[in-house]
């Protein structure tokens, strides 16, 4: 028939294919160009099951029966992607000649223009996904930043050191209202040796918390540039109180005798140096009293080291009672003690003190146990600044020699 020839011609020229099938999915007729769309072209035969050659027909069994009954007479499956091409499939009931119930599926290949449009959509989707992923990363970074910021004190100051912004943890730490903090010089709350701010510097701050705790901070000063000019700094404070405590403990251990708790030789030398500086400035003098515990070795040999340690603690306690507030006492060796007497009123006063020290063992003997009392005595040598030396070493040497003289 001419109409059949024209139909096939149009299908071939255009992008439309068709296939007729029964409600049992048996193929009745199809256009020649249908094979390029089929998943398995070799299965396209009159009488074969359309679902063997077109997978998209699997699952629509109930739906096409509904098409026969309902007013909705088209089932459309749009945008099926096959072999790098897109197709729309429309299925409609059809009545021809001897067939009471038939279905025609016409398959329309999308134009090149449409495909280009879809590719644009794909690109847009790709960019959107990248953007969303980046936003998620940014959100995460912001969350991390907020989390850190919630636990670290920070505030902004202008070049004069006036606080112009403070984070919530800073306000909370100080126990103030924001308007009590903003506008104040930072040194009102954060104490440091120098109250000026230098860019890219670190400082140690000391501040009192709302709870009254003395907190040390390591403060980092970060300059902020606006239009190439540094007009403010962010100060980020990290609590280093625990480090300061450790530092103090280490410093104490380095400068003190662990048995008696008295300053050791190192700290005594520092104190003598300071005393010399002070005496030079004020034209005053001071004296060193070198005290050696006589026969200490015998105590260790007789009673043991435990008794020796007890005696050293007892002596340090006894000698400390002769020391005024500004004076210092140190244990500089095994059984050697030094007292630094500052700003003595006169020589007589010093002589009186030394006599009392000499007599103190009689008064303060060490009761070791129920039956034993440990007797002890001192040998003492004295040096005066600047008469017997002008530095710590020479003053100690002089007093040491005087002490040995007194032993004899």
């Amino acid at each position, binding site marked *: 028939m001419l109409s059949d020839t024209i139909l096939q011609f149009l299908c071939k020229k255009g992008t439309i294919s068709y296939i007729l099938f029964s409600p049992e999915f048996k193929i009745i007729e199809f256009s020649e160009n249908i094979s390029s769309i089929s998943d398995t072209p070799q299965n396209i035969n009159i009488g074969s099951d359309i679902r063997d050659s077109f997978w998209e027909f699997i699952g*629509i069994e109930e739906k096409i029966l509904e098409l026969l009954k309902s007013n909705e007479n088209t089932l459309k499956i749009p945008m099926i992607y096959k072999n790098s091409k897109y197709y729309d499939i429309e299925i409609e009931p059809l009545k021809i000649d001897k067939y009471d119930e038939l279905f025609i599926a016409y398959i329309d290949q999308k134009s090149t223009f449409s495909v280009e449009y879809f590719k644009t959509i794909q690109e847009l989707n790709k960019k*959107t996904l990248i953007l969303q992923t980046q936003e998620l990363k940014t959100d995460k970074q912001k969350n991390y930043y907020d989390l850190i910021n919630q636990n670290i004190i920070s505030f902004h100051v202008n070049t004069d050191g006036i606080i112009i912004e403070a984070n919530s943890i800073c306000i909370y730490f100080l126990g103030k209202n924001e308007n009590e903090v903003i506008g104040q010089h930072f040194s009102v709350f954060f104490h440091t040796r120098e109250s000026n701010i230098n860019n890219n510097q670190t400082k140690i701050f000391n501040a009192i918390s709302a709870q009254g705790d003395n907190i040390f901070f390591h403060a980092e000063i970060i300059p902020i540039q606006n239009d190439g000019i540094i007009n403010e700094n962010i100060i980020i404070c990290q609590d280093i109180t625990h480090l300061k405590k450790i530092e103090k403990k280490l410093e104490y251990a380095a400068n003190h005798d662990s048995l008696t708790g008295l300053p050791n030789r190192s700290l005594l030398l520092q104190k003598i140096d300071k005393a010399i500086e002070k005496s030079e400035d004020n034209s005053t003098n001071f004296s060193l009293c070198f005290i050696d515990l006589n026969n200490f070795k015998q105590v260790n040999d007789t009673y043991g080291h435990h008794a020796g340690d007890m005696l050293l603690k007892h002596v340090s306690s006894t000698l400390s009672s002769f020391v005024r507030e500004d004076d210092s006492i140190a244990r500089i060796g095994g059984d050697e003690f030094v007292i630094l007497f500052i700003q003595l009123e006169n020589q007589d006063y010093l002589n009186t003190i030394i006599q009392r020290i000499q007599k103190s063992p009689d008064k303060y003997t060490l009761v070791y146990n129920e039956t034993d009392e440990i007797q002890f005595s001192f040998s003492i040598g004295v040096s005066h600044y600047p008469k017997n030396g002008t530095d710590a070493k020479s003053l100690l040497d002089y007093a040491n020699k005087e002490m040995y003289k007194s032993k004899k």
Partner: protein
Amino acid sequence: MFAYKIVMVGDFGVGKTSLVRRFVDNSFSEDYLSSIGVSMSKKQLTSVDGFNSTMMLWDIEGRTEYKQIFKQYLVGAKAFIIVADLTRPDTINSIDEHINLCLDSVADAPICIALNKSDLELRDTNFFDELNNLSENIISVHKTSAKEGNSVNEIFNKINNTIVEKF
């Protein structure tokens, strides 16, 4: 042979195509190319009872802010796999909407939920109970990774066994 249709549903970029590719070809690509329309894949399966079947996988384009899912794609599905991206909370929040859409088309269809990209998950999350409670049709929730293949076969086999059992 018994052949049936299942549809992969979810927002765009969650990895529906990657899950299908991992299951059908055991392959994976890092390059993202969003699906347009629908593409179909076929997989021959054997259930735990030894029943052979053909699973037709409809990999449809994901929902975007500007374009909803074509309901026509869901027609005749025997089951649905709803896919979400563990690294994008919005895609997990929209699972509920996808369930409603699927059940509007096929009221009694079993649903599996694939929480995909588990290889990129920063924190171990557990909202299985919460998701399971969204619908009685949900038969299982899995954390999947199309990239590493984690739980991919499990989720498709779970679907197959359920459908074959019903058949």
